């Protein structure tokens, strides 16, 4: 039982963490609550489905999909979000409209029937007595590599320094000669890159359908605030907590597995009662 929870929880953690890190980055630097984040993840899953079914090789399909997503995301940001960036509620609704737009475009082009993407590695392996699909392993590896890559970029490069500076204090970073607008666009691209990779990694695991962005969106939002807005470490830990909460519900309360999202959110709300600023958020975040 413990082993099952551990293994399945890890897979979900990897996916949620990729999404939450990207979302958290965009929020931290751009102060944009991007409700379309997981919609791009959904489009990436369809991208890989389309390119894989039209006979491109897998590597080329991955490259084309990620490039397409990043380009489309930056274009949307420049066209619709940046001009109204100062008005938070307007940004919220604009990103929601983008999410609905992406969903409807996918509906028009692919229809609503669930699609299947062949796994990169089929079959399964027994890990400590638990049956784990090889594709789950691939997903986990992709997640680990992306997260390590993101960590390396953020902590060891000059760009990473600029990103972290902008995340900490946008105005001061601007005064220090960092082109904040440019950094924001780069971060938008980086966040969507993570979303696209997550979408590609889970496409063979989850059903590819136009509505697949809703549930991850709720979880990612919850993970990011649970960890504390603006704290990247918090986003990752929040994602891991919620993933394990969901998986534990499935194993411990089998008759209630439909309640897994509700219970994960209940945990988030309970944490808020104790720490209103999330686990790793700073209580003065508001004043910035």
């Amino acid at each position: 039982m413990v082993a099952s929870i551990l293994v399945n929880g890890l897979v979900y953690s990897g996916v949620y963490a990729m999404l939450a890190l990207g979302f958290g980055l965009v929020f931290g630097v751009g102060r944009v609550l991007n409700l379309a984040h997981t919609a791009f993840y959904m489009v990436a899953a369809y991208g890989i489905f389309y390119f894989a079914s039209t006979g491109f090789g897998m590597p080329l399909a991955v490259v084309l999909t990620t490039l397409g997503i990043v380009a489309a995301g930056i274009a949307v940001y420049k066209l619709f979000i940046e001009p109204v960036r100062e008005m938070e509620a307007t940004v919220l609704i604009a990103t929601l409209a983008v999410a609905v737009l992406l969903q409807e475009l996918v509906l028009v082009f692919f229809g609503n029937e669930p699609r299947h993407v062949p796994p990169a590695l089929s079959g399964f392996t027994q890990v400590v007595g638990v049956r784990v699909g090889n594709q789950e392993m691939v997903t986990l590896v992709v997640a680990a590599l992306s997260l390590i890559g993101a960590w390396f970029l953020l902590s060891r490069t000059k760009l990473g320094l600029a990103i972290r500076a902008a995340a900490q204090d946008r105005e001061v970073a601007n005064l220090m000669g960092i082109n904040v607008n440019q950094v924001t666009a780069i971060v938008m691209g980086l966040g969507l890159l993570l979303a696209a990779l997550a979408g590609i990694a889970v496409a063979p695991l989850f059903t590819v359908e136009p509505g697949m962005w809703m549930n991850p969106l709720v979880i990612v939002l919850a993970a990011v605030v649970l960890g504390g807005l603006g704290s990247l470490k918090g986003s990752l830990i929040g994602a891991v907590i919620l993933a394990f909460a969901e998986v534990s519900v499935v194993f411990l309360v089998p008759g209630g597995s439909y309640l897994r999202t509700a219970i994960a959110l209940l945990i988030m709300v309970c944490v808020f009662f104790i720490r209103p600023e999330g686990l790793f958020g700073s209580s003065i975040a508001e004043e910035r």
Partner: protein
Amino acid sequence: MYYGRYLLRYLQNEILVLPSRVIVLVFVASLLAFPLISQDPNLLRMLIVTALFSLYAVSWDLLSGYTGQISLGHALFFGSGAYASALLSSHLGLPPYATIPAGAAVATLAGLLVGIPCLRLRKHYLALATLAFPIMLTGLVLAFPGFSGGEGGIWRIARLTSTRIEEYYLIVGVMLVAVFALWKVAGSRVGLIFHSIREDETAARALGINTVRYKLFAFALSGFTAGMAGALYAHSSAARIVAPGVVLSLFMSFQPVIWTIFGGAATIYGPITGVFILYPLLDTLNVVIPKYRMLVFALLVLFILRFMPHGISTWIRDTIERVCPSCQVRNIATRQACRACGVELRHMQP
């Protein structure tokens, strides 16, 4: 006779001088006179839903637009109002005039229950915590299908009135009265305090305002209004069924936000404009091009917000009216001098 003349003069001096007031007058009059023009049940039903959703959108505007307490889970209030009245109606057989106030009361309670723990949360934390509540209530509804009807919902709900026209006048009447009352609240000292909480809560507290009490009041009032809309919806001819997939969905939570931001936040008339443009549009698109309706809808919202980020009604008002720089009285944009103090307006930029 005297009152008649008084009314006429009031009309001439206070309403006809400003295009926005004329628009409101024409809007209310045409809403009330609509059944004289057409009694088509489909149009009436569409307007009934539009009126209900206006009330729902205004309730969001009051809480989130005015006090800045962004709620992304407003379906909780709409849904608890709808569920409470539907449950009372189908289990106990109570008539609508008893269940609707009860639904509104339950939603008020929900507003307080959510409001108290959320007092400590700021901005985005609040937004996302509220997002969670309708999802958790959905879990509760699904967990007790015997009582709540589960995902299939409740359907043995008494009808509001026997004819469509009566229902139309009842709902439109309730909507107009409630909105007028909220407009008065928003324009009063309370409304001013709401604004101040949004702009700078610390400063408001420093001035000796008990912001906690006012925030809770905003939650309760917003919950009451949304709950009333939900309860009326449950009994209306548009619903006939109260199911979690409809009244507690994520989409139901986002809808009032879309309408209000689209129309213009913290204005009361903004959300109404938003609903009266967007809902009939969506309903018509569903007949004309069902496949592309949401696509058109999303594009429209995106472009309007791109070019009118403060909302469409705010944009229109700022285009057709000018504020006098010296006495802050509003004037029609074509006027050359202020109607109150006579200051020249001609070269002013909006």
